[in-house]
């Protein structure tokens, strides 16, 4: 199966172009856009970890190492496409248009972090694994029925492939020919469980065979192959050719969450050979003379300021409003609940 589903790659670890058919399309503007977003979400991510360590943020799920997968796929989306992320895909969300402050708020236990930005269809992160895949199939089906050319992307990890909802989501989408890109980030671990214990198949891409669906295996640390394969799959989807499963092979550099200690289960030197996706793109850019030091300095400053502002905003955000505990359960509050709210607010007033 590894031969039937080889890892596709456009640039290699050294930043050399290995698939010449893409030469034309790897222009500086695209490289810079990818680089900017990867840099930006990394800054967001590292800041989040440090905030968590200082007790200024709740448990947080870092995504370092997966930037190429998240940015490449998110940039491939159209304005009106639907995104169904997991708890680890804030990189994709930020790239697609979620504001930083709300993303921090999410990790600070605030429902505000699930509110989609105006004009963008971003579903709240799926916490129960794989449950968002049928949602993506449904939302994409709705687009199809409306006759638009919009598609949906569903993010999920290697571990998620073991859940029934993965299977039911892919099966529905394939039967309906719904325009969905099932975008798997195979970071080789589900918390502590390595992929060999998760599945007996050599690849995740081959699981597409079960649904008569194209399965594509790509180097998830090569932002170009992510970007172009995602574009292609989305284009197929828009053209009525149904869903695609992409397996982006990548690596989670850090812990599963800030509450996790990977040294308990990962051999110390595992993954050491993996070239950071930013470094890889940097190498490509340097080799292709689109590396502009001045620009780098500029975006670094920009990003730093953006992250700092977001943190400030998050920290000065109005306290969570107790009424929100009651106000969003139903469109119209049942009397029972209204009484519970009233009596609790009265209780709080009494001090």
């Amino acid at each position: 199966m590894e031969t039937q589903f080889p890892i596709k790659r456009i640039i290699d670890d050294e930043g050399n172009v290995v698939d010449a058919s893409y030469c034309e399309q790897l222009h500086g503007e695209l490289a810079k856009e990818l680089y900017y977003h990867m840099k930006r979400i990394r800054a967001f991510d590292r800041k989040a970890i440090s905030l968590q360590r200082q007790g200024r943020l709740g448990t947080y799920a870092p995504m370092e190492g997966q930037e190429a997968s998240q940015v490449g796929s998110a940039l491939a989306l159209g304005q009106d496409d639907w995104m169904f992320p997991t708890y680890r895909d804030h990189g994709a969300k930020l790239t697609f248009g979620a504001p930083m402050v709300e993303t921090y708020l999410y990790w600070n236990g605030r429902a505000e972090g699930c509110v989609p930005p105006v004009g963008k269809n971003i579903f709240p992160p799926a916490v129960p694994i794989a449950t968002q895949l049928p949602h993506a199939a449904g939302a994409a089906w709705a687009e199809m029925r409306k006759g638009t050319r919009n598609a949906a992307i569903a993010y999920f990890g290697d571990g998620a492939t073991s859940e029934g909802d993965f299977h039911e989501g892919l099966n529905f989408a394939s039967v309906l020919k719904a325009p969905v890109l099932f975008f798997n980030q195979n970071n080789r671990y589900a918390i502590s469980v390595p992929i060999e214990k998760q599945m007996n198949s050599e690849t995740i891409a081959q699981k597409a065979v079960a649904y008569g669906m194209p399965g594509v295996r790509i180097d998830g640390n090569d932002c170009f192959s992510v970007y172009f394969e995602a574009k292609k799959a989305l284009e197929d989807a828009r053209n009525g050719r149904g869903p695609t499963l992409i397996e982006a092979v990548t690596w989670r550099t850090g812990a599963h969450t800030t509450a996790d200690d990977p040294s308990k289960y990962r051999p110390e030197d595992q993954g050491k050979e993996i070239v950071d996706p930013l470094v890889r793109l940097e190498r490509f850019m340097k080799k292709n003379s689109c590396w502009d030091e001045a620009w780098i300095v500029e975006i670094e400053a920009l990003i730093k300021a953006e992250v700092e502002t977001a943190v400030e905003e998050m920290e000065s955000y109005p306290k969570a409003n107790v009424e929100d505990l009651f106000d969003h359960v139903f469109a119209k509050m049942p009397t029972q609940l209204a009484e519970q709210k009233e009596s609790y607010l009265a209780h709080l007033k009494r001090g």
Partner: protein
Amino acid sequence: MEMEVKEIQRENTATQLLTIVGAVNDAMKMLLESDESVMILGEDIGKNGGVFRATEGLQEKFGTDRVVDTPLSEAGIIGTSIGLAVNGFKPIAEIQFLGFIYPAYEQIMTHVSRLRMRTMGHYTVPMVIRAPYGAGIRSPEIHSDSTESLFTHMPGIKVVCPSTPYDAKGLLIAAMEDPDPVLMLEPMKSYRAKREEVPVGKYTVEIGKGKRVREGTDVTLIAWGAMMPIVEKAAQQSEKKGISCDIIDLRTLYPIDREIIAESVQKTGRAVIVHEAHLTGGLGNDIISIINDTSFLYLRAPIERVTGFDVPVPFFALEEDFLPTPARVLESIEKAVHF
């Protein structure tokens, strides 16, 4: 004394004689006609018209795009319905039997019911889940569950359960017009039990409102769905023994109409609750709590419950022993009255 309930102006309204399942079918036809965004999804609901024929003729009339035979996959049905609902459609998802809803429990528990709250109202799930429930028709095993309280414990979803054709149509239309998800449990035992004149047009029965179906003074009987004929029979029998029963058909199981319960119990001072679900964890407990909360000082006897036993719904050879009977209800009425 039987009471006639007139909830809408029926003047100038043509009616038709329908069973419960016919009324359900009629409601869906009406909804599909009046709202382009309504869709029906489920197993065998298309060409076959549903295993109970609730969707008979609908695919033919409205096409395979709007009345969709899905794969055999309850989590998939509910999960894709969520995606449809969030993106502009109004799905009515049929679960073939309530006993087969559990594979979708995760989707209902975590997503259908919570999406509004999680997004502070930005994403909502205006969908209806329909499921036939209950024992008494000699179905094969696992087909006869009555587990409404697994859903009433789930904030964010409403649960209704009609016992008449009129209510079935009105509640289903109300459910689909509700901006929030509603689970409608349909008493399969009563599906074709009797016909009733049902208005031809669109009308709704308000969700959250019970109905007094018999006026009495000595004891309040509370039931819903397939248990209504049982309590009505028991009331007739107790009448002969000089006991007058006030009967409430709850109709909505979440949110429960506390006012109608309180009003009745404050009048009678006694209550017998009848449901076919298991005693432990059954809705009877919630109703007892409502009485405790609202009518403590009025109570003249412990509240009685006549329910399915705390055993899995048995194979059909024993299902009549599992189900409440008029005789059991009558005994409890007498126990309450002679306390």
